[in-house]
């Protein structure tokens, strides 16, 4: 059961990521700001 849930979570994360990439590319094309949502990266971490 736990294995199935982790598997499901994994494919859902990748699906979410693909959807955000698609959305961000569309937004960029129409000149709007684009973000990857929860999976966005942050600017350089300070050393």
């Amino acid at each position, binding site marked *: 059961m*736990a*294995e199935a849930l982790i*598997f499901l979570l*994994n494919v859902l*994360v*990748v699906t979410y*990521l*693909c959807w955000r990439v698609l959305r961000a590319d569309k937004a960029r094309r129409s000149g709007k700001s684009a973000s990857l949502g929860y*999976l966005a990266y*942050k600017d350089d971490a300070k050393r």
Partner: protein
Amino acid sequence: MRDLVMFGMVLAWLPMAFMNGFVAFLLWIYTTLMSPQLYLYGFMSGFRYVFVFAGLALGLLLLGRVQDRGAFIKDKTMVLLLLFIAHAVTSAAIAWSSNPLVPFRLEVFIKGMALALAAPYFLTSRERIHVALIVIVAGLGIHGVLDGAKVIASGGGHNVRGIPGASLGDNNLLALGMVMLLPLWLYLAKYSANRWVKWGCLGGFALCVLAVLGSNSRGGFLALSILGLWYWLTSPRKLVSAIFVAIVATGVVHFAPDRWFDRIATIKEAGDDQSFMGRVAAWKVSVNIANDHPLFGGGFEASQVGAIWDQYKNTPNFIDIEIPSDISYKAAHSNYFQVMGDLGYLGLFLYLSLLASAYVTRWQINDLVKRTSSSNTWASDLSTAITLSLVAYMAGGAGVSLGYFELVYLQIVMLTIVRQMLLRQVEQDKDVLIQASNRAGAQRA
């Protein structure tokens, strides 16, 4: 149930991949590293995930339908990669006629190399590289996360066995793959904006360490130790990195089951160990194959062919052992001896040059980061994470046959892409400076 979920996911993925070539490329990476069919038992287990998404990505690329498409990078690393591929294909073509493993292994090799060669066309920005890293840890990391969770649930009793039918087919290979992922988990934890994602990455890191412990792999332990040492040596903040390594080491000592300590203790008695002696026998055979065919070797997995093994097992060389009759043909059990036996000394030279080029690229990236006007610490940190992953691969790979692991070549190409991005930035900075000085000159005049 899983098959129905997967069916739904594929229905969602396909239109997204059609609409955006980069999404197709991401799904190509993901399905290559995850091998979803191995987790399915019904009608979706026969679906050719990699074939479909690789076909879509390459098809869209050839049709010019990839947005922000990159170009092939003409530098030493890519030339070396092309030479290595050409050499391996030639070796396969003229390989031993009695080596029946060549056609299958060649197909797997070409699929892995196609992924690496396609990367420069798709990974054209920092965002895309970040996304690709998430897909890499999601695709490969799921194996470690699942096994790590089982190690916890069983109180250390779970035996990690690897993923049959995939690149990481046994416990040693899986352990090495998981050690290679550790620096990437840490990079993503550092650079993910969302707090939950950060903690998720640290959780993935911990579960992958547990999966390595659950594998009872001595090679995995060695790779983990060398990775920790190298991480500390190359870290600019020695105290923080020492504390981090100490926390992980304490966790390992605390959580590892007794049988793991027993297994690791056998490293000292490797000379009396049948399993280790089998490896030495395979190394001896690989050296003999390369001595006889120095340019092109015996073809993929040559030491696993009974006829080839029998022909070379008794020829003396610098590995001075008598191979017992009960040890028969087996995998080379070392990346270096594997490539040597399969592709000859020339192939080994290209392979080692390719690995060495990754370290040169890392050095160049660090130099370029200092020369760019904007902050590019991420590039420096990413190059460190990838080279750490390659250190683990080179150390652990001394005892397992993972010479053609697609992730290694993809990471080497990713370093080249980052270097290229920084070079472009340096050029742009120069142009801006020249324009500014021209304007200032014109105003003075």
